[in-house]
């Protein structure tokens, strides 16, 4: 099976600085692979380990994607090959623009049987890109998939909804967005990390894909940190009886 797993790189939220005017600064942020996208890579690996085939990784974004540590990071999880679409405009893309760029990349790659996406990206978590991509590629698409069993030219999948689990048969090719509890992503070994450096990375710009004209259909008006509630920050150290007594008295006071 020819599998493409999509991942996004995101700024580490612990490095986000809130400025005085409540705007955010990402300047000092380290970038990382979206935590829940690793599940999509792992699903791909387990499928090809079971039925044969190949997993490629695909991401679209701005220059941050060129970070070699992150490229190695994703390839060390197993994919044979990496494809990147890099353009400044893809840095702050919405789900539609991202899906358009992913589609352009996939069209350029050529053929696929299965595209996998994670449950949601680490920064926007809109849970939309996989769905949009499926629709744009005009193939069946599902979200919330918690189990995948390949069955020839089809998949049998379980989809976990709020109050029920659907068992569905999906014709390939398809785009599937998986849940975070579908698997436990593997931890790359030293050997995996060394091997990752030797794998092929192909990078395109939007103009290489003939899609330089694509536009973002939404507009950001503002991004502001919520107003913080002032906290008393009365912190006791230690877990002896006397210290716990002090905490207890304070809790008691608040519970009244």
């Amino acid at each position: 099976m020819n599998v493409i797993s999509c991942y996004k790189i995101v700024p580490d939220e612990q490095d986000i600085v809130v400025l005085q005017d409540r705007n955010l600064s990402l300047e000092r942020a380290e970038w990382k692979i979206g935590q829940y996208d690793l599940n999509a890579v792992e699903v791909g690996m387990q499928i090809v380990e079971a039925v044969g085939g190949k997993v490629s990784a695909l991401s679209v974004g701005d220059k941050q994607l060129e970070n070699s540590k992150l490229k190695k990071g994703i390839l060390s999880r197993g994919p044979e090959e990496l494809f990147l679409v890099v353009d400044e405009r893809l840095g702050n893309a919405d789900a539609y623009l991202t899906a358009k760029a992913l589609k352009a990349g996939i069209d350029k790659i050529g053929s696929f049987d299965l595209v996998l996406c994670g449950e949601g990206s680490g920064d926007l978590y809109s849970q939309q890109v996989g769905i949009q991509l499926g629709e744009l590629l005009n193939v069946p698409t599902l979200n919330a998939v918690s189990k995948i069993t390949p069955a020839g030219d089809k998949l049998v999948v379980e989809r976990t909804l709020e109050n029920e689990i659907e068992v569905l048969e999906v014709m390939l090719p398809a785009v599937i967005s998986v849940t975070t509890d579908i698997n436990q992503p593997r931890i790359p070994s030293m050997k995996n990390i060394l091997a990752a450096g030797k794998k092929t990375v192909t990078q395109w710009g939007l103009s290489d894909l003939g899609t330089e004209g694509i536009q973002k259909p939404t507009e950001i008006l503002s991004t502001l940190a919520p107003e913080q509630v002032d906290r008393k920050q009365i912190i006791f150290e230690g877990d002896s009886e006397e210290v716990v007594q002090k905490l207890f008295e304070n809790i008691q006071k608040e519970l009244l």
Partner: protein
Amino acid sequence: MSKIKKVWVIAEKESALAQLCAGGRQLGEEVAAVVLGTKEETGKAITMGADTVYWLGEFKPENRMEDYVKTVLELLKQERPDLLMVQPTKRGKLIAGRLAASMGTSVLVDAAKIKIDEKVQVTHLVYGGAAFRTEQSLTETTIVTVGAGVYTALPEDTSRQGNVISVDYLEPSNKVKLLEKKTKPSATVNLGAAKRVVGVGRGIANQEDIKIAEELAEQIGAEVGCSRPIAEGVNWLPTERYIGVSGAILKPEVYLAVGISGQVQHLVGVNQAKVIIAVNKDKAAPIFKHADYGIVGDLYKVLPLLIEKFKANK
């Protein structure tokens, strides 16, 4: 606030439909509900605030709501409402996303606030809850998902009159075949209603030890919630109990965090609590910066002592 003209709503649950209809009435001049269900349910939509019901027909067990995307899409293209509001269930997200892709836009997800200022401006959380972002769609129709609690349902008004328009079903081109439906035991917890909540995190070493937190919760009349990894990861508590940007957003009077580090994705679910209390053995845990009271100590020592003290104080 100025108003837009046409608002459409789609929801799986009646309570959500009622809230979206109420929201529609605030934002727009006309509200239309897209309903897949019985004739009675179309009438219900009108009493809850819809002026028009686009009736997709009765639900057939062999079908899924998603099979109606093509039907709804054609209708959307014809009628061009200014706003489509969808309930963010898993199905709702899939339906909204597929419609948006075909309409050439993105869904503005999980609206915390919707404002009309010529265009529809939607505010929602980004960066795990570190910020509120306000966005607008540049296309004619804006598509949003709106969760529970953003709008309050109007009292049902049985004297309301409305139009029910039957819509013909269009066979989808990419149909997925339903093999089986299994019921999922769903927990009935309403964390949102709890005045006091004890939240447990990965500081708890075993599933069994959740009992200690439950016992403390019982002593102070609190519900038990948790961080996401406890519900999705080790699966020690049901999904319905996890708190945070992708789980429940609460506003309790007291939140007591036990063995929770205090990442932004979690904190955004409780930072409107009146009082936050933290128990964590790591002095540098971010939770302490957001706590009113805290104790740097081992929860396995602190909790039993606290429980004892509450018991003795009864």
